[in-house]
């Protein structure tokens, strides 16, 4: 029987093909907060945006918290110490307002988004699109019928200015500024993002969608998203992230808060494909009230370091929370992802399925938190983490923390580590597939049951991205 070449695993993993996102245009910015972070920068951002005093105070308070918190390197990677906060630009904008038709978007920005395929997608099936270029939304379009139903889809500035009665109540409540150092940073300098309100009983059939793009070097993007699904409503939100390659590291630090009121359902889908020098440090958390459901579908393929643990606070009886996560870490990448499930009411259930693939010297880490306190009963959690290691020095870590008390509560956590077997590859090659094709197929098989859960448009994209990543991995 033919032996599989033992050395194939040692060969270099390929460079990611970023044909879709790896391009940039020269931009001249009308507003530039300069380099570094201090109260003056925060005031500048607030002033440019014409914010009310309470928002400015919120930002300044958050900056103090940020300054006071240490880097979480006592548990997280020391790579965080390579972020030079003093070298980052915290606000860049062309002075544009979000425009409503594609024709109004400035040509150079339009070129960027055309390459990202936004108008095309929108024409095809998207209910609404919000695209963010560096700090500000440049294009926003929503189908008229949704507007008629009372759906609000705008940026944080508009949201807090025009609909304070809806958004102010929850803004910074699901994730307070003091939650962690990067949530504090975002709270101080946030700009752009999506504020969405779905009225009672409204079920938005098509996904709402956002694109985030970093175009400028040494730039930090700090968008802020708040989605409120009122009683009995349903919505799916999808975000895609890209950035061109820069010589120096770039920071993306978002805060995403979801509120699913009684009986509401929110599904939040992310496909993150930042270039490999982006520090992607994102805080995402949802609150699920009685009978509500919050579902995070999170896919991390790009970035240098991602730290992201989407969470659900199950606050109402019978609430459900779910995190489905796929991470792919190639050479030089660390995908530090996971999930948090905080049970805070009876009869709540949560489910976490996390799959990671480490290629070359890539490292993927799962961190999980499941908490069921003493006062509760009939709560359940199920967690599965599976790691696939492609090459000899690929790395994976799993660090769950599970705390259970109360009555008739049960949790189950399982994790496994495996590789694609040489037998499997040989079998497929015997059927005429190349090694790369066989490896892609095996990896796609590994994530298949999760990919199925993604909206169609994204699952196709995801499979393609995985194939691109896998092609060179076996030489």
């Amino acid at each position: 029987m033919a032996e599989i070449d033992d050395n194939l695993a040692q060969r270099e993993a390929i460079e990611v093909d970023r044909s879709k996102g790896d391009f940039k245009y020269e931009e001249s910015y009308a507003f530039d907060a300069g380099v570094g972070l201090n109260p003056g920068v925060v005031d500048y951002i607030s002033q440019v945006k014409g914010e009310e005093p309470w928002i400015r105070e919120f930002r300044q308070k958050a900056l103090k918290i940020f300054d006071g918190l240490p880097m979480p390197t006592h548990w997280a990677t020391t790579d965080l110490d390579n972020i030079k906060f003093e070298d980052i630009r915290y606000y860049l904008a062309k002075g544009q307002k979000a425009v409503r038709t594609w024709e109004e978007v400035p040509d150079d920005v339009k070129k960027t988004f055309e390459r990202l395929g936004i108008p095309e997608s929108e024409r095809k099936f998207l209910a609404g699109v919000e695209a963010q270029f560096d700090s500000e939304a440049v294009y926003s379009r929503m189908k008229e019928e949704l507007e008629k139903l009372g759906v609000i889809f705008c940026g944080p500035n508009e949201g807090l200015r025009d609909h304070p009665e809806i958004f102010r109540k929850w803004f910074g409540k699901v994730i307070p500024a003091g939650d962690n150092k990067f949530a504090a940073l975002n709270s101080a300098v946030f700009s752009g993002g999506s504020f969405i309100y779905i009225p009672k009983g409204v079920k938005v059939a098509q996904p709402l969608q956002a694109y985030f793009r970093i175009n400028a070097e040494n730039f930090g993007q700090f968008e802020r998203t708040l989605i409120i699904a009122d009683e009995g409503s349903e919505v799916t939100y999808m975000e895609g992230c890209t950035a061109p390659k820069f010589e120096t590291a770039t920071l993306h630090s978002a805060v995403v808060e979801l509120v699913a009121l009684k009986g509401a359902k929110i599904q939040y889908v992310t496909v993150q494909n930042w270039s490999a020098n982006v520090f992607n440090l994102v805080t995402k958390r949802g609150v699920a009230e009685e009978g509500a459901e919050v579902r995070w579908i999170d896919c991390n393929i790009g970035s240098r370091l991602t730290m992201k643990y989407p969470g659900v606070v199950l606050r109402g009886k019978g609430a459900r929370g779910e995190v489905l996560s796929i991470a792919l870490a190639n050479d030089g990448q660390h995908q530090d992802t996971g999930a948090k499930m905080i049970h805070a009411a009876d009869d709540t259930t949560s489910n976490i399925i996390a799959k990671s693939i480490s290629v070359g010297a890539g490292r993927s880490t799962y961190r999980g938190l499941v908490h069921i306190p003493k006062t509760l009963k009939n709560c359940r959690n199920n967690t599965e983490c599976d790691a696939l290691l492609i090459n000899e020095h690929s790395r994976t870590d799993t660090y769950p923390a599970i705390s259970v008390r109360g009555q008739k509560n049960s949790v189950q956590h399982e994790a496994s580590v495996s590789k694609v077997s040489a037998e499997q590859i040989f079998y497929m090659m015997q059927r005429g597939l190349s090694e790369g094709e066989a490896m892609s197929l095996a990896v796609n098989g590994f994530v298949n049951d999760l990919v199925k859960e993604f909206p169609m448009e994204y699952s196709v994209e995801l499979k393609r991205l995985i194939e691109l990543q896998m092609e060179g991995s076996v030489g």
Partner: protein
Amino acid sequence: MSTLTAPAGVLDAARQSADLAQTAGHAWFDALRRQGWADFQRLPMPTRDDEKWRFSDARSLSLDGYAPAPEPTEALVAALIARSHFVARPAALIVHVDGHCVLRPALSPELTAQGVRFETLSDALRHHPALLQEHLLKHGAGLGGAKFLALHQAWLRAGYVLFVPKGVEVRQPFVSVNWTSHDGAAVFPHALIVAGEHAVVSVQDYHLGATPDARALAISACDIHAGTGANVSRLAVQGWGSRTQSFQVDNTCGGRDALITSVNAAVGSRRARLENTVRIDGPGADVRLYGISVATGEQEFDQRTLQIHTAGQAKSDLLFKNALLGKARTIFSGLIKVAPDAQRTDAYQTNRNLLLSPDAEADSLPGLEIEANDVKCSHGATTGQVDENELFYLRARGIPLEVAQELLAQGFLEEVIAKVEDEEGAEALRGMLSAKFHQA
């Protein structure tokens, strides 16, 4: 009137310094103990924010009010020796009370002739200094208990050394029993087990309180070195009195083709922390780590384990089971570490917790750090109540609810008890675990 001074405890430098005289005459050992004291002074007490102490009640840690205890009375010694016969025919038995050796092991002439040594630490210090110097406390406490191990090292003089030379097989277990009796006694028992190539050895360590509510500080440590092809099995029972704080730091090294089985049982202490590190240095090694506990009242059992695979083609399997009653808490934190070149490693880790009371809390931190790809590694953790269908089945046979629950809990624990090869040891363990259901 004369002023009463508090008796100088284990934190007293002068007393520690004076205690060094007890093991004088061995410069390296003296230096080891002094180093322990220096380390203890240097290292901070753990805090709640310390990742290695996550979930444990680090705030209530206190080492005040414990002191080395005086020699026990003859009557007490006789009574406790009588209670130390867990195994009818051990290879040899050694008994300590409050850190004083009260029964020296008597080895059969056959075993002595084969080169087997089973001696108190101080005897071994005189007879086999090289053996001690090679293995004693060679690995520190990497799981968070460094300060406590340093105090152990500073006060180290009680314990035993067991050496089974190359090719010698001893099937009968070597038994060591450590008792605390004196109120506020501080004890620091040490076990050093060295098995030569293809040696076979079985050990049972009992750590017990003379009275059920004995108050003590117990910081014990065990070093196990299993040579090529050696077969070492150990049962360690932590049954200190209910007002005891205990810390146990075990380090095990397994060489090529070594087979190591350890069962760590916990029933006693107010709070007990176990740190168990296994280093798998040779291919073909097979290490099985088991843990079992019944936690009641306000007990906290804090279990930290580390399986380090530096050599490939070796296997380790861990199973820790806890049954919790009352307001008890158990913490299981385990990590499997597979080094970059340890290909073809099989490593498993399972933690199962059975909550028998709504006020009990089980925390689980099962971890993996894998840096080689050709491995089979998995972990699983479950926490839950007794199975409703099983409960109904038992009750449908007329068994009352409480009895049915206890039966199911004992059934849950039986999987680990069955791993104790020595039937008498298993029976002793079964009895101690079972007794806890009735105290609770």
